[in-house]
């Protein structure tokens, strides 16, 4: 059903020889694996008592649905269907994907995950802000660190004192 409804969007006649978007096969493959794993996971469950549906039916249906739509996406990609990437205020789709920036941001967040309990939010958050700004191309490191510290310490006090949510003080325990 989906492919049939989908066909007007592909409209191959109006576009001059679109390059197939091969990355879509990758997405389809990942989603197919997730769908199949969901089905497998469902088969390991035991049925309950007095429950004609049981815990399996719903995941089986969802897993099957995901797997089928993933295959349909691969078919549509092979037939030339191209995605419409999301545009936005600061998005420039004319260039390629800037992977170094994305990887740097991911690294900064991973660093935050690793250090937040040890260093506390006030320090980790400041590093997060300054690091992310640097990754995105800012070269005013001193200013970014100061802004990051103000944000992090301010939010720490805001959450702990204002909202009663005890964010970790970390190494600054007793100082903050």
């Amino acid at each position, binding site marked *: 059903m989906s492919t049939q409804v989908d066909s007007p969007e592909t409209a191959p006649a109006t576009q001059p020889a679109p390059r197939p978007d091969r990355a879509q096969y990758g997405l389809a493959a990942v989603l197919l694996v997730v769908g199949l794993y969901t089905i497998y996971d469902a088969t390991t469950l035991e049925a309950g008592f007095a429950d004609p549906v049981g815990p399996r039916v719903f*995941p089986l249906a969802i897993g099957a649905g995901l797997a089928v739509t993933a295959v349909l996406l691969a078919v549509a990609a092979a037939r030339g269907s191209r995605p*419409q990437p*999301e545009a936005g205020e600061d998005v420039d789709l004319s260039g390629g994907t800037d992977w170094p920036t994305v990887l740097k941001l991911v690294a900064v967040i991973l660093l935050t995950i690793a250090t937040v309990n040890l260093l506390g939010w006030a320090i980790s958050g400041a590093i997060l802000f300054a690091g992310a700004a640097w990754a995105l191309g800012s070269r005013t490191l001193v200013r970014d660190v100061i802004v990051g510290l103000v944000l992090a310490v301010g939010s720490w006090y805001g959450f702990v004192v204002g909202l009663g949510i005890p964010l970790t003080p970390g190494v600054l325990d007793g100082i903050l």
Partner: protein
Amino acid sequence: MDNLGLLWEGLQAAASPMNLLYAAVGVLLGTFVGVLPGIGPAMAIALLLPVTYGLGPTQAFIMFAGLYYGGMYGGSTTSILLNTPGESASVMTALEGNLMARAGRAAQALATAAVGSFVAGTIGTLLVALFAPALADVAVEIGAPSYFALMVLALVMTTTVLGASPLRGFLALFVGLTIGLVGLDLNTGQPRLTLGITQLVDRLDIVVVAVGIFALGEALWVAAHLRRKPAQVIPVGQPWLGREDLRRSWKPWLRGTAYGFPFGALPAGGAELPTFLSYVTERRLTRRGRKDGGEFGRGAIEGVAGPEAANNASAAGMLVPMLALGLPVTATASVMLSALQGYGIQPGPQLMTEHADLVWTLLASLLLGNLLLLVLNLPLAPLWAKLLRIPRPQLYAGILFFACLGAYATNLDPFDIALLLGFGLLGMAMRRFGLPVLPLILGVILGPLMETKLREALTISGGDPAGLVDEPLAVAIYVVLLLVLLGRPLLVRWRSRAEAAVAVDGADGAVGADAARAEGTDRAGVLAGTPGTTETEGTKGAGR
């Protein structure tokens, strides 16, 4: 009358000085975050959810109300001053609004948007107060089979009616439903899809999912394609409306409200369709009996007043299914409902009966928040416009900072930041592959509820699948669903024709011959909330 009495009580509860302060803080924070480029209302609320963690439900609701309307208003400010709407609902506002701003009438465009939002929001909220309780009375009688059918209808409609590609909509929906499966099965207590990770047994925190998909996903996506030249911001003075502007605005406000409210209440994609209809109507009406074709295409105030009112009225209309049925039909509603879950309030038809006081406080706060928005934001507009000049690295670093803070504050466990990162990468991939976000987030929220209702319905019928069509209402809903699916090709054809007409007229007929050829790409662009082609053509026409 009874409803108005309850609303009055809600107003009294909401109007204490302390609560007014919360409403004002909500309005200011909401506008602040909504003005920032790249942040829509859903993302604004998701980012600001943690702020309400420490509050009681009443105060939190009052703040939500402010955040909600504030975020919406902030979004329209951005689209008028930058000409690059962050969400599909602002596309139509940006069209004429930005032309007005370039013609030196930014102040009037912002003013008609603000007052129009206030008028539409107030009328819309009053309509919710009238309709929702009546619907809720009926809703309590709705049995599990019908409720299941309603959810199927909402999911299928948001997946197929919206967006350029239903296939990608369904993919997003199934991914969302899969995310919703993670955790303990409610009946048998067995873990599903937890991969043996203890933190996942407790089900995924919807705030982490929403902030990851909306905020972090967006930030990563923008980071991968950051426009190196900053967008041009049009300076703005004090917003005000002259007598002539007011005379031209008030009818579009009311007509926009009339379009927006009913569409907002339906699971048909929120404000996208009514803003479009309002734009088309206003254009036709101003052109009638004029040889020069009116100001449309050169910055007509009607083209801002109408769609902006429609946008806000549909935001109010969305509350009807959300409060009466516990059924979210937009991304913003889903985030708000997930916030309710944080207070142990389950979405569903009992919402309005079991938590009546909260609901009435929310409605009253929406009225108050709307008023505060007008009072605070008209004078503050030049300040908000300055926010658009924040350097992009610091802006997106800030979004990352607050996204991580929000995720961390949910459980004080770094694992949640890791989850956030995972969902952020998923959100980025969805933007890359054109998968719509709304079906996913609805799938996450409605999936578990659907399973509960399905099992309830089939337990009653003793496992017989016929139990799903046991009630006349359920049968009726499935018939509606079938009609929608059958009628979709017609709708798509009608819309692509109407939108091509907008593109042609925007260019003053200059590209008329090209329009038919460009129809396919235009439609895809507008539907995905990216009016790139339409807008550049419109601008060209204006400069001619």
